[in-house]
């Protein structure tokens, strides 16, 4: 079927307001009498609070409230923004009498200005009884280690599973390789930090304007943490300056709400960048052990994986991330025998939680590095080795989590091979000679990734379309636009299905007072889940309009259809009336006036796999350890592409994120004190515009039968295989295996020197 809007690049619905600076983000909302919140952060990584004296702070002119753990409800809650039941531990209090990482919240102040609030923080006197600081999982799991959360033995979560007989599989293999991989703490670096504005409306309801990916789950969690019913809370998500998983969580809103409840005033609580990078969220650092048995011919027979994930001081999404890693582990390279063991450990470092790809980046770095190391030992081309072992068309997920009904992996590999000129480069680079100081290499990696949160969480989205009297429309979404283009693609679907123009649609999302429920912006699920809900609502809407038109023309709906904004006679194709005029006539109608409001929800028990591959060409400067990326090819099977420009933009952002993970980004923590060394954008080496390499994006468009338009996920996947592709290119260039990310110049140079000097 030919589409008018779906599959086309259309301007973002928020493009003009954003480029003109009119789009309002949380901190742009100013209210009369608004106060500024500030949080007192712990200077030690682990301690009991023996005494807090807020007297002097409260006495400072301009200070309206100072709160400590004694002023907040003593209700533990789970900060992970998933639907009920909580997917992670309830281990967080709004404020507690114990601090668990350097930067943990100790107290909060609301004052007339930021400066007064900051001064007040300095006047709060706190006496700490310090406890041993546990930075690494090894320390935290040691016999007799002090418990960061009582009764947990510092284990946030743990699980294992197996199929077949993995030991027998290893025994039957010609060759077994066991290796350890390490991944760093990464942080999201959203342009907009965590920020909320809370106030009480004229009915004393709590209004929370916040930068979030999960408005409805946030409301539910706040209602639990504050013991209020949902009617008492209204959550508004305005424009959001990026989330990447860091805002799929309730990080600071309940604390701000208490400041508002204490003062009765609007309070703006905005994290500074330095604060964000300590007290926001991070991606789990992991230690991954992979063991694989293969035949001489390169066929994988058995594989085991053990992962230790450092979740930091609080669970956040905690072990749910390791569940996700486990679910993706067995499906990429299905083997008859496999086993998995995962553990998430509490330590006294900043809280690790959801971040773009939800564990798949760590898994993929380890797995795809391991695959290249294996291929090398087998003397096989790494691409061929993958072809031999990767999931095939129609092949089932051995664990049954995912469906494989639209399969583009093989084609992604073929496209990458062709675009990157793989074969020739593998040969010429290898032949280029060992003596060169700058060595070229080419490498690749591939992935498969989920499209929904099912079955880790329930899956549901909903949409409401209300036709205005003139045939323009309002689309109410629970699914959160956070910069990725959600509102635009949803509007494209309405335009497509109802038969009105894109410019005729106004999107409202998200205001929990008026928008329908949605589980949130994560798991790369929105276009797939909410897209289907919007399509259903739009079809309903169109059917109602056609119904009414049939009455106008004394015919039956089955004789009519909508084409390019017109209601036409199906047989003759004659244009009878425009959709818009029909809507007008329905609203202003003496005989049978009517409205068109359609609501639809979509619940799914289905999780299709998306696929993709990244090819990387690099040059390694063996004198300085620098890895220059000459070109990257990023190829994705996300089913049908609904908006090519947005899709490509999504890939660009993901590639940069993956590149940072592979080469330069890592949050560094002092192993003794737990202090974060580099919580600023000077010392945390996120790429700048000048560091962006040449990038070619390509799509392999399969058609996913369960997607509204054949589409599957693309939100997270582009960040996944970049780091291992670069790493494998470095291996190709230098012959040295780097099993720890990122490949910083220091790490590369020192290891190369060691390899040369023996």
């Amino acid at each position, binding site marked *: 079927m030919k589409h008018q809007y779906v599959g086309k690049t259309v301007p973002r619905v928020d493009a003009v307001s954003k480029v003109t600076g009119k789009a309002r983000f949380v901190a742009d909302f100013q209210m009369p009498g608004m106060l500024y919140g500030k949080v007192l952060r712990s200077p030690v990584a682990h301690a009991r609070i023996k005494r807090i004296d807020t007297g002097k702070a409260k006495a400072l002119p301009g200070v309206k409230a100072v709160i400590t753990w004694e002023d907040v409800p003593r209700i533990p809650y789970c900060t992970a923004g998933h639907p009920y039941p909580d997917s992670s531990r309830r281990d967080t209090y709004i404020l507690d009498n114990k601090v668990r990482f350097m930067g943990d919240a100790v107290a909060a102040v609301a004052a007339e200005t930021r*400066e007064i609030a900051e001064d007040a923080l300095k006047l709060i006197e706190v006496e700490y009884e310090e406890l041993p600081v546990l930075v690494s999982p090894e320390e935290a799991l040691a016999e007799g280690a002090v418990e960061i959360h009582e009764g947990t033995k510092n284990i946030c979560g743990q699980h294992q599973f197996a199929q077949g007989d993995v030991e027998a599989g290893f025994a039957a293999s010609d060759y077994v390789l066991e290796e350890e991989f390490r991944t760093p703490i990464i942080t999201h670096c959203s342009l907009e930090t965590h920020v909320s504005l809370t106030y009480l409306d004229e009915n004393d309801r709590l209004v929370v304007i916040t930068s979030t990916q999960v408005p409805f789950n946030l409301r539910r969690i706040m209602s639990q943490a504050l013991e209020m019913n949902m009617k008492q809370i209204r959550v508004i998500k305005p424009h959001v300056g990026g989330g990447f998983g860091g805002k799929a969580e309730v990080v600071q809103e309940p604390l701000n709400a208490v400041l508002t409840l204490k003062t009765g005033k609007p309070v703006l609580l905005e994290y500074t960048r330095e604060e964000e990078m300590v007290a926001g969220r991070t991606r789990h650092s992991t230690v991954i052990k992979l063991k694989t048995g293969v035949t001489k011919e390169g066929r994988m027979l058995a594989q085991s994986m053990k992962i230790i994930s450092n979740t930091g001081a609080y669970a956040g999404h905690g072990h749910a991330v390791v569940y996700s890693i486990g679910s993706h582990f067995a499906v990429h390279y299905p083997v008859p025998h496999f086993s998995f063991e995962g553990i998430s450990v509490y330590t006294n470092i900043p809280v690790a939680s959801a971040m773009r790809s939800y564990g798949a980046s760590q898994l993929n770095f380890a797995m795809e590095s391991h695959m290249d190391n294996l291929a090398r030992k087998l003397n096989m081309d790494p691409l061929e080795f993958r072809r031999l072992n990767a999931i095939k068309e129609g092949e089932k997920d051995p664990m049954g989590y995912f469906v494989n009904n639209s399969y583009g992996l093989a084609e992604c590999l073929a496209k990458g091979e062709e675009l990157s000129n793989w074969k020739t480069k593998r040969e010429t680079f290898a032949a280029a000679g060992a003596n060169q100081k700058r060595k070229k290499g080419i490498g690749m990696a591939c992935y498969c990734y989920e499209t929904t949160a099912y079955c880790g969480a329930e899956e549901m989205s909903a949409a409401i379309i209300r036709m205005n009297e003139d045939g323009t429309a309002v689309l109410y979404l629970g699914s959160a636009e956070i910069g990725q283009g959600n509102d635009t693609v949803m509007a494209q679907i309405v335009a497509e299905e109802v038969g009105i123009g894109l410019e005729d649609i106004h999107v409202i999302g998200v205001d929990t007072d008026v928008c329908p429920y949605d589980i949130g912006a994560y798991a790369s699920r929105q276009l797939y889940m909410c897209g289907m809900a919007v399509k259903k609502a739009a079809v309903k809407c169109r059917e109602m309009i056609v119904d009414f038109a049939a009455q106008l023309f004394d015919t039956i709906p089955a004789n009519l259809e909508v084409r390019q904004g017109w209601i036409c006679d199906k047989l003759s194709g004659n244009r009878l009336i425009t959709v818009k005029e029909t809507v007008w006539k329905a609203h202003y109608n003496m005989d049978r006036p009517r409205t068109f409001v359609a609501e639809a929800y979509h619940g799914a028990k289905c999780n299709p796999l998306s696929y993709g591959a990244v090819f990387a060409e690099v040059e390694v400067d063996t004198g*300085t350890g620098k890895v220059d990326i000459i070109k990257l090819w990023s190829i994705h099977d996300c089913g049908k592409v609904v908006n090519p420009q947005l899709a490509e933009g999504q890939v660009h952002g993901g590639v940069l994120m993956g590149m940072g993970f592979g080469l*330069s980004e890592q949050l560094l923590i002092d192993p003794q004190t737990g202090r974060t060394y580099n919580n600023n954008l*000077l010392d945390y080496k996120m790429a*700048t515009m*000048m*560091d962006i390499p040449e990038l070619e994006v390509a799509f392999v468009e399969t058609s996913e039968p369960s997607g509204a338009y054949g589409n599957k996920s693309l939100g997270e996947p582009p960040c996944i295989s970049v780091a291992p592709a670069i790493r494998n290119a470095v291996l190709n260039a230098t012959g040295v295996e780097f099993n720890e990310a990122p490949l910083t110049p*220091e790490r590369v*140079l*020192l290891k190369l020197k060691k390899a040369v000097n023996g």
Partner: protein
Amino acid sequence: MYGVKQLFVPATVKEALEWLHQNPQAKVIAGGTDLLLKMRNQAMREVVLVSLHKLKELEGIEILPDGTLRIGAMVTFTQVNRSSLVREKLPFLAEAAVTMGGPQIQNVATIGGNLCNGAVSADSAPSLLALEARLVLENREGTREVSLEDFYLGPGRVDLKEDELLTAIKIPLPRHNKWGGYYYKYSMRRAMDISTLGCAVVCAVEAGGQVSQARIALGTAAPTPIRCRQAEALVAGRFLSPDLLIRIGETAAGEAKPRSSWRASKEFRLELIKELTARTLVQAYQNAGGEYRDEN
């Protein structure tokens, strides 16, 4: 947010110096790209500021009658880069200027502020050390000149009195007809980054191809930016060779005193010093018209 108590904007250097004399606790602000960061981080509060923005005497780039190049302390990195005089006389300095920060920072950051701030990573320091630049310092009592090398006293400390202003940087232009320079900034990113190591070399080449003289300077390799005189002595009068380059690098590494920090280990920094000193020398030599086939 920044805690500025008072801002004074003098119209002449004389007025500024008088005011500084009366208010020794005041802080001089040029581009503010170092100072405002410190104020934002609350390293300073209730600050009294003296702005140099209206001081015409601190602007401009010119050749003095004695043949030295004078760069006003308020000249920005962008201005250094765009100056036709600098491009003609010291082309490598024009290039070095835009290795710092990014375009926005280069537009406001001044060369005077870069030096007075005293950071060991200051990107203008190695090139100016290699050029044997001298600084003109003034207070109410008078004017003095110090070499940039002597200006650096220790980590973050410079020979600048509370009531003094740096008014200009004076660079004796190389007289040799075959000379060249190069600044190698090594940082983790291509923009918006401090240097892990900065290396500048100015070298003159004889007609026969020997290096007649080379000056080698390093930033972020010791508590202050330094000259590597032993390495310089090693190269004077010699032809470049792979062996010599290795020895130059090792000698420079011996003169440097890098330390380990979470940003980079001493071991790594020493490797970089060895490699980059040699590379920079080769580049400067080639810029001087010397011919050397680099195996890289």
